[in-house]
């Protein structure tokens, strides 16, 4: 492989002008809510960096996250990110297979020890020694720990890598956990979503490339730039929520008129993600726009939380039998207390 001095040189060689670069940075700044004046600074910084080595580890996953990042299919501005990085190991994408693939990874690790970026999709099984998912005879846990040791930072892509996701759903047969449950000594950022939004992935990588560190995170380790607001906050149907216009079925008048889906179980109010602003498929649409409530897929344990169709304000209140039993118990205790009180009154009245 011919080695370029800087990313700028490398791209120029490919015929990518600095204007394109600038455009990319303007787009990134916009999507990450950075000040617009940062864009030229980012462009200069990016041009001066070296091509970033990236190792992509796939564990218990469905490849949906990879699909998602690739679904910036047209030569879009975001797809430029693949020109900025050197994806040295990725099961699904690399041409090499078997031993050759593993060797490529080892080589990349050696050459870039302490500097490479690790992207993980999928959860890590811990139960029974982690035997439920292995690659090249190594459990995912071993692989993760080995690779992470030389990483500059880790990015958990998708809800599985971030919080355990579907493999962790009750009863969690494999004992799946997310990356940050295991890796405690390296910076780890979570990009949850099932799958995550491509722009969120590329934006976070770009941010790492330009600033050399992971962006600001919230309490769940997510970049604030993309996960700062709830779906509900940014939803175009929010005014309908405010006006109390709710669809009550998927085929009723409200649904046809595009009213708020809160009553149909939309989890938008408690789901932090950028779906409502960045949207999907090149800004085409997002679940609520196509008439279905948010499932809350970028939140921990979303799968086990609740019925997708139960309104957020409805609760698990128990059942009528339980309350009837409580009433019966109350009546029994009340009657008992009354009898005791009568006796006690008599005792007092007797002056004993």
């Amino acid at each position, binding site marked *: 492989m011919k080695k370029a001095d800087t990313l700028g040189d490398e791209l120029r060689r490919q015929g990518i002008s600095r204007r394109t670069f600038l455009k990319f940075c303007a787009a990134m700044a916009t999507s990450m809510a950075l000040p617009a004046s940062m864009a030229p600074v980012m462009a200069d910084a990016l041009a001066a960096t070296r091509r970033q080595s990236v190792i992509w580890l796939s564990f218990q996953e469905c490849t949906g996250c990879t699909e998602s990042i690739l679904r910036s299919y047209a030569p879009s501005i975001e797809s430029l990110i693949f020109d900025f990085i050197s994806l040295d190991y990725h099961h699904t994408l690399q041409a090499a297979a078997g031993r050759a693939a593993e060797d490529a990874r080892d080589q990349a690790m050696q050459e870039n020890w302490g500097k490479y970026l690790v992207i993980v999709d999928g959860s890590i099984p811990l139960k029974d020694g982690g035997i439920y998912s292995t690659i090249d005879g190594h459990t995912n846990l071993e692989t993760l720990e080995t690779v992470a040791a030389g990483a500059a930072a880790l990015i958990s892509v998708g809800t599985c890598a971030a919080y355990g996701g579907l493999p962790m759903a009750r009863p969690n047969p494999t004992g799946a956990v997310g990356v940050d449950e295991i890796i405690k000594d390296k910076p780890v950022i979570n990009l949850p979503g099932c799958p995550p939004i491509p722009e969120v992935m590329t934006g976070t990588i770009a941010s790492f490339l330009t600033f050399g560190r992971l962006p600001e995170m919230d309490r769940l380790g997510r970049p604030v730039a993309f996960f700062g607001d709830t779906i509900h906050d940014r939803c175009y149907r929010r005014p309908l929520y405010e006006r109390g216009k709710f669809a009550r079925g998927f085929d009723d008048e409200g649904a046809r008129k595009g009213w708020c889906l809160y009553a149909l179980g939309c989890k938008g109010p408690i789901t932090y993600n950028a779906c409502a602003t960045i949207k999907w498929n090149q800004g085409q649409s997002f679940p609520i726009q196509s008439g279905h409530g948010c499932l809350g897929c970028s939140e921990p344990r979303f799968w086990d939380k609740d019925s997708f169709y139960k309104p957020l304000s409805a609760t698990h209140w128990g059942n009528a039998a339980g309350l009837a039993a409580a009433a019966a118990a109350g009546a029994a205790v*009340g009657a008992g*207390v*009354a009898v005791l*009180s009568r006796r*006690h*009154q*008599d005792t*007092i*009245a*007797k*002056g004993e």
Partner: protein
Amino acid sequence: MTDPIIEHAVDMESKRFGLKKPMVRYDTQGEMSDAERVKKAMQHFAKDFGYVAATYMESCVHCGICANACHFYVTTGDPKYTPIWKIEPFKQAYKREAGPFAFFYKLFNLKHKVTVEELEAWQELIYDSCTMCGRCTLACPMSIDIASLVGMARHAMFHAGLVPHELWAVALKAEEEGSPLGANPKVFKERIRWMEDEHEVDMYIDKEQADILVCMSSIEIQKYPKSMADTAKVLNYLGLSWTFHTEGYEATNFGLLSGNLDWQKDMSQKIIDTAIKIKAKTVLLPECGHAYQAMRWHGANMYGQSLPFTVVHISEFLADAVEQGKLKLRTVGKTAAFHDPCQVSRRGGATQAPRKIIEALGIELREPASSGDFNWCCGGGGGVITIHRADELRYKAMELKLKQMDSTRAHLMLTSCSNCRQNFDDSGEHLAWGRKIESLLELVADNLIEDK
């Protein structure tokens, strides 16, 4: 031990009929330790923790609205006179000992044990500043009958020996002598004879059988004896079979007012037994509010079963006679204001009776604001008038009362309660009212048309 209280003589000079002002007050009775007093109080609190009292004590939301209904609060502005506050120790004892969550109240000491200091402090609130007029009941958004709760709280106070000096003394006199204020059977008989001569009216006493047993309050016997003659005059006019009876004549019930249920029962029992003995169909009660409350509404409950006779207040009796056209009355003309006795109107249910009589007398009734069921109490009932300590408070309440009566600018001031009447006389003098309240009964008797 000689009880110094008993030595106080009945004060026959004052407009207010009661004991002379004691030189030294003895507001605690009996030789008891503090612990014993509390125990006695608890004994009797406990007897009243029934469903009705419990409901009321559970219901209070501390809104303080009842204060606006109480003449003692309204005239003084002192928050301690807030009606529901008067039963605070009772409520406290209930919550700790008998309520549904008594266990927790006790376990966590959420309501501490009632102390003797609290009971002593509350004596004034339970006796001096409550006439049990029940106006607060109508104001309470929860309809809590505070008056009846005060009545219950008095039971405990009596047995703890924490009754105001004079009230305890008159109650004891009533129990021992048959009359709280010296109207023993001998005096009663003498005064009947005197009135018989004075007013030339036939008055029957101790008849072996009569349809109507007529009772009198000692206030009337001693202070307003004309009432006796006037009652006789009306009964004779109607040609009814009636009698006074020396075994059962005293209508006042200081057992009720002081809080001694046993005495209350004794006093009612005398009348009940006498009425049964002479086979009376009716017991006619005089113009006395608490007497009506005691016999009309408590009597059967003291007796333990329904009474074999009916109990009527003289105003009800007169109103019936008027309605049936048996009583022909001269047209008096003039205008009148009527003071509703709380125990007959609001708490007795006979609010309309005096109005019918007044109409029959051709008097234009000028209702002041807050009359009828909402009438301001005179401030002297419930035994308050006997307590010298409460005089200033009572006069304050009466200021409000007189202002209300004066606002009608009526010629006549009427009432049908001798206790209210003596309070008007006493307070009226103290406040230089310059007017006199008259008895409705006496007005009726003075205006009978004798067409024979």
